[in-house]
């Protein structure tokens, strides 16, 4: 699985992208962020700011309870500020 981070989430996590092997017991984005948080506390920001943070699965807006698989690309980013 590819995980991407943008804007201040990228700065906090310290990378823009990483590849992980998704464990079998992780079924949705909620479970993924809990799993990441267990691996390293730097991911706790995503839990803390969950109400604010947006998610895309395979470059399409999704929600925290959407099912995911190891072939997916997940992105975490703040509300957008273009234009």
């Amino acid at each position, binding site marked *: 699985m590819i995980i*991407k981070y*943008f*804007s*201040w989430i990228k700065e906090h996590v310290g990378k823009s992208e990483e590849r992980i092997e998704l464990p079998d017991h992780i079924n949705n984005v909620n479970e993924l962020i809990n799993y990441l948080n267990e691996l390293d506390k730097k991911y706790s920001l995503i839990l803390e700011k969950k109400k604010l943070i947006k998610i*895309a699965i395979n*470059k*399409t*807006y999704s929600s925290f309870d959407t099912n995911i698989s190891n072939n997916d690309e997940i*992105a975490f*980013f*703040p*509300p*957008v*500020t*273009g*234009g």
Partner: protein
Amino acid sequence: MSKNFPFIKIKIQNEDFDVSDEIKFLHQKNAGAIVNFIGVVRGYDEKNNEIINSMTLEHYPGMTESEIEKIVFESFQRWELIGVTVIHRVGNLKPSDQIVFVGVSSKHRQNAFDGCNFIMDWLKTKAPFWKLEENNNKKNWVSFNENDNQALKKWEE
């Protein structure tokens, strides 16, 4: 998808754009009206009362284009439009630099006005871009403006 719609142009680029060239592109077929919006970098942050020296725009390649495509296709569903161009710059920009161009052509003006307004409102809330403002000693990620969500209400049916 843009290839199938020759009068849709969507570009994410570092380079500046030439407004008169873009108007020429929209000035075709049976167009009777061309409306465009140009977003420009402000040199002052009114919220924090600070001068802005430069701004860096980050985006999510692939998703940015597909989100803008969805918005543009929706505008063609809602109004009788002839051509649409959306150009959004990324990378480092300075005050008074052009950031975004949205141009819409149609047979009659109201469709072009509404289409342009609609595309810009949705781009502000859905297209994955993030602005980092920089002055001499500070960097600040611009926070989302709730007014941009309010602006969408006028498009509810």
